[in-house]
């Protein structure tokens, strides 16, 4: 909302207070000034000049040589406009002035006027066009002012621009500040300046208003008050300069003297008004009611046909709808050039009704904005008087005596008791009862003393937001000043087991970062087809920003691939990434909220070179075993010591894939992402991806394993290799070797898988490094020979394996 300082000045005396101070104090009162602009600064160095003589430039046909009186002296100025003539009052820019808009620059950048010779003759300034001053479109002609403009007047005050415009952002609880009067009230409290007394002058004539028009409110639940006045014999025309400038200054379009007057009063007092052409109101009767069943369409004055629904409130005459209450008037009763008699509506409508209507119509107006936040029901009559004064001044006409005023009752101040100790307890202050009273009365809330410690406050109807003592306490804090409340920091330390965080997630992040993974954070909103890829019961949004973000993610894979794709597009090809994030789906059962299940996942992404940029080693691309290695490393870090990867070929998004099980519980998937999936993200290199259920993982982890004494005797390590069928899974061989070792088993790893020369076709050689140990003694050659014999027999029986060689270290 824009607020003009000049306008405020008519309501409260702000003399000697700087713009900066006004902005600061308003902000500190909770009325945030986002910015302010001193308009007069725009036209420094420009004055109103009087053209005395015009003659042709001796060296150029299209240029004129002008003598221009600028008050103190006469300047000679060269002008290229065809319309320049002696006797005109024109805007003159002097040397040093900044011309806001350069007509010859494609971007229109401002430029500084310098003393310049044009075709051999010096020009001491410039006569400007509307376009050059940024005041309009016209660039071919210079701007010409009224003949009575005073020569030498600086341009800003002449244009009414000796003003500052504050741009204010208001919280929804303060509709009382949606006007100059409301802001003036706050400033009067902030600077202890008295509000200017309101004097409204108008003359009523002729037959009483009740003979010209009638009002009937048949939906008082939605319209607590409807007031109206009638003015006859007006002449609709352009607004006078002051009115036009005032409404334009705060960003409204000037329409005509009647409409501008209603807008002006709304911006001054906060009461939305609407003017009807009385002749177009059938039967001169206004009926406030809900629409009838056949009334489903209505054309508002912006020319758009609107759908009407039965709960909306309408302003009607005897035959038809003439306005949507509190939102917008209709074409059928709009003020036009032929209008002579007007009925001015100044009403109070139900906030929630106006809000619903405005939302349903998708139509928000200055009026609806105010009504849905709440307008003072006691403002209708005062606003009518003020608008009558202005219309009679600017459009003539005679004001019918009296006011039509239909109301559900009287609107009285709300009485609230305020306990002094409650104020101090909540704010942490030590204010005396008298101080509280003084603070509240500065914002027009009179307080009586019920007792030494209790005040009785009468909250005026313009502060509909104050309903309880706590609301008054806020007012006390706000006006007393939060900056005047001393900080207190006496927090007592406590340990509360109810709110302990899972610390392992922090550890995991540290661990993965240390293992060379960059953490990523991706969008949890996705296109529906991607969400559907992993889970058919995904969550969709009713009002997405776009189809690209219409569903909640069901996997961390799409976000990861997007991130891989982005980096590839920048030429970064090697990456190790991880993410900890949520996925969402709909279940059949009741969950914390509805049937929505949110689970935490951890993902691991490998793509590119496993060992980037080594000068002497062969470049090794990541493969599925690097992925397994990282997953296994994570499991080991969480102190898990056994798990199973089961081949799983039905996942569409993977080409080689494994399901991970720990203690029979499925933890997630790991695999090489399929070409088809990669294509969707324009990723043209292999991506290895694992996604595990984080909550399950953390539940399974071993937290505090008790310390186990260190082995007393050294392990015996040796290598073994077997020749087996090509398709025999190595993991099965390991299981067998493990069971053959029994209690002696300590560790096993695969160090070679080989087929080719020296190995029969269809077979492979698998080489293992085995460590055995005992708690009782150092194992001897017989123990090991015994194991090898047992292992050879077992593997030969189970897999027809043939012992190839052994090496004892």
């Amino acid at each position, binding site marked *: 909302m824009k607020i003009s300082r000049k306008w405020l000045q008519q309501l409260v005396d702000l003399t000697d207070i700087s713009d900066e101070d006004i902005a600061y104090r308003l902000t*500190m*009162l*909770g009325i*945030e000034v986002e910015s302010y602009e001193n308009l007069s600064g725009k036209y420094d160095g420009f004055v109103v000049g009087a053209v005395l003589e015009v003659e042709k430039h001796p060296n150029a046909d299209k240029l004129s040589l002008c003598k221009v009186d600028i008050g103190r002296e006469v300047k000679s100025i060269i002008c290229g406009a065809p319309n320049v003539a002696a006797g005109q009052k024109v805007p003159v820019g002097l040397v040093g002035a900044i011309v806001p808009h350069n007509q010859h620059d494609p971007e229109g950048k401002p430029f500084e006027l310098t003393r310049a010779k044009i075709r051999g003759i010096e020009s001491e300034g410039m006569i400007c066009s509307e376009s050059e001053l940024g005041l309009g479109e016209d660039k071919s002609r210079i701007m010409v002012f009224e003949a009575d403009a005073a020569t030498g007047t600086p341009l800003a005050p002449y244009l009414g621009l000796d003003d500052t415009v504050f741009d204010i952002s208001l919280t*929804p*609880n*303060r509709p009382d500040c949606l006007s100059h009067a409301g802001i003036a009230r706050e400033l009067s409290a902030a600077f202890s300046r008295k509000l200017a007394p309101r004097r409204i002058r108008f003359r009523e004539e002729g037959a009483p208003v009740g003979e010209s028009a009638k009002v009937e409110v048949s939906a008082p639940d939605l319209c607590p008050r409807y007031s109206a006045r009638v003015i006859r014999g007006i002449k609709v025309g352009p607004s006078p300069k002051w009115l036009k400038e005032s409404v334009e200054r705060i960003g409204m379009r000037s329409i005509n003297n009647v409409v501008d007057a209603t807008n002006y009063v709304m911006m001054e007092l906060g009461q939305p008004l609407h003017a009807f052409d009385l002749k177009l109101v059938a039967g001169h009767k206004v009926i406030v009611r809900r629409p009838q069943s056949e009334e489903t369409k209505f054309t508002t004055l912006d020319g758009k046909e609107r759908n009407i629904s039965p709960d909306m409130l309408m302003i009607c005459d005897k035959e038809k709808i003439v306005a949507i209450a509190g939102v917008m008037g209709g074409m059928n009763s709009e003020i036009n050039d032929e209008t002579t008699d007007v009925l001015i509506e100044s009403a109070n409508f139900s906030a*929630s009704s106006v*809000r*619903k209507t405005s939302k349903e119509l998708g139509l928000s107006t200055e009026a609806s904005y105010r009504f*849905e936040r709440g307008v003072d029901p006691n403002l209708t009559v005062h606003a009518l008087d003020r608008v009558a004064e202005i219309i009679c001044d600017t459009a003539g006409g005679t004001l019918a005596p009296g006011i039509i005023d239909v109301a559900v009752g009287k609107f009285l101040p709300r009485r609230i008791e305020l306990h002094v100790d409650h104020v101090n*307890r*909540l704010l*942490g202050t030590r204010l005396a009862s008298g101080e509280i009273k003084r603070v509240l009365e500065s914002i027009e809330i009179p307080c009586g003393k019920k007792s030494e410690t209790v005040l009785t406050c009468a909250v005026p109807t313009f502060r509909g937001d104050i309903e309880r003592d*706590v*609301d008054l*306490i*806020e007012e006390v804090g706000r006006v007393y000043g*939060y*900056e005047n409340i001393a*900080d*207190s*920091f006496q*927090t007592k330390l*406590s*340990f*509360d087991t109810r*709110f302990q*965080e899972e610390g392992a997630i922090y550890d995991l992040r*540290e661990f993965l*970062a240390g293992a*060379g*993974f*960059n*953490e*990523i*954070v*991706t969008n*949890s*909103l996705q296109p529906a087809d991607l969400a559907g890829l992993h889970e058919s019961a995904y*969550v*969709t*949004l*009713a*009002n997405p*920003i776009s189809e690209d973000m219409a569903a*909640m993610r069901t996997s961390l894979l799409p976000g990861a691939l997007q991130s891989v794709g*982005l*980096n590839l597009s*920048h030429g*970064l090809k090697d990456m190790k990434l991880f993410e900890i994030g949520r996925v*969402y789906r709909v279940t059949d059962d009741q969950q*914390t*909220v*509805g049937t*929505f299940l*949110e689970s935490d996942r951890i993902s691991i992404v490998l793509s590119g070179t496993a060992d*980037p940029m*080594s*000068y002497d080693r062969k470049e090794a691309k990541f493969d599925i075993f690097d992925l397994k290695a990282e997953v296994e490393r994570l499991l080991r870090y969480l102190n898990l010591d056994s798990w199973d990867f089961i081949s799983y070929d039905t996942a569409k998004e993977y080409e080689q894939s494994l399901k991970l099980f720990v203690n029979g519980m499925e933890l997630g998937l790991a695999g090489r992402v399929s070409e088809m999936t990669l294509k969707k993200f324009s990723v043209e290199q292999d991506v290895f991806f694992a996604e595990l259920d984080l909550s399950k993982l953390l539940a399974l982890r071993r937290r505090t394993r008790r310390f186990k004494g260190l082995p007393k005797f050294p392990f015996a390590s040796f290598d073994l290799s077997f020749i087996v069928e090509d398709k025999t899974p190595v993991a099965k061989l390991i299981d067998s070797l493990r069971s053959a070792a029994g209690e002696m088993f300590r560790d096993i790893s695969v160090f070679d898988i080989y087929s080719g020369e020296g190995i029969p076709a269809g077979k492979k050689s698998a080489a293992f490094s085995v460590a055995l140990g005992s708690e009782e003694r150092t194992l001897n050659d017989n123990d090991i020979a015994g194991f090898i014999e047992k292992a050879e027999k077992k593997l030969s029986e189970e897999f027809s394996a043939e012992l190839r060689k052994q090496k004892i270290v």
Partner: protein
Amino acid sequence: MLDEIQKLKEEATASLTGLRTQEDTENFRLQFLSRKGSVAQLFEKLRDVPKEDKPAIGKSLNELRTFLESEFESAQKKIAGEKRADTGSIDLSIPGRKRYIGRRHPLTKTAEEIKRIFTCIGFGIADGPEIEDDYHNFEALNFPPDHPARDMQDTFFVKADAGKYVLRTHTSGVQIRVMENNKPPVRVIMPGRVYRNEAISARSYCLFHQVEGLYVDKNVSLAELKGTVAYFAKEFFNAEAKLRFRPSFFPFTEPSAEVDVNCFLCGGKGCRICKYSGWLEIMGCGMVDPNVFKYVRYDPNEVSGYAFGMGIERLALLRYGIDDIRLFFENDLRFLNQF
């Protein structure tokens, strides 16, 4: 005998200086130090030495052996070292192999810093659902239905059950859940992801992360809130951080305030980041509204409380001087590797 020892010492020393190859050293060992070498032979002769001379000669013989062994060892090492350097001239200026460096995301780092600061003074941590019902996201937080306050946050609605469920617009729903399930006093912070239906730009994204805090106990005051926030700002920004509390409005707090910190980028003189005001907005806060207490069955005459909320992205943007919020979600390695 002593002359013989001296002679052998001279002979062996001369021989040591001539050692060049491993073969030379082996020969030397055989000649002087082996079981049948010259030194051993002298020890044999010790048997025939008169008893009274034995200690002196034995001592000097031992000294000779120790001396020769140590000299031999260093000569051996020297030769081995020369040999290694000879086997190819390695350019040690070649850079080491590159390895992956992992880092936590700047949003994580910021969130963890905030958590650390509050857990240090006794705050616990609570979590809650991102898909929230209207009751916990709005109603119990004192947003009446059809109230303009609901416009303060552009809300995503879940398609199923027509408007009954939303993507939470703040983590305040967790405040309600914490109070519903726990008797006062409660002191928690609630970090989490929240959503706003706003066009994506450098300044706003469809989601962001918040940390909210809640403290309910007997006699919690606005002054205590101010002191706690001041502690946070000094820890998070710097010890000189100056704060300003401006009255504001949130349906779930009364009184409410917006907190600004003096712009540390320009020292309060005014710059582009602080929009030439010298102040940066960092959080909203206030005293829990009695209506909220009624919803969770706390007695507003018994307890009072404060709540605050801040955007992790906003704090990270300010802290690192990042000018585009989208960078947090693109995961460009050139960005991630800076933190």
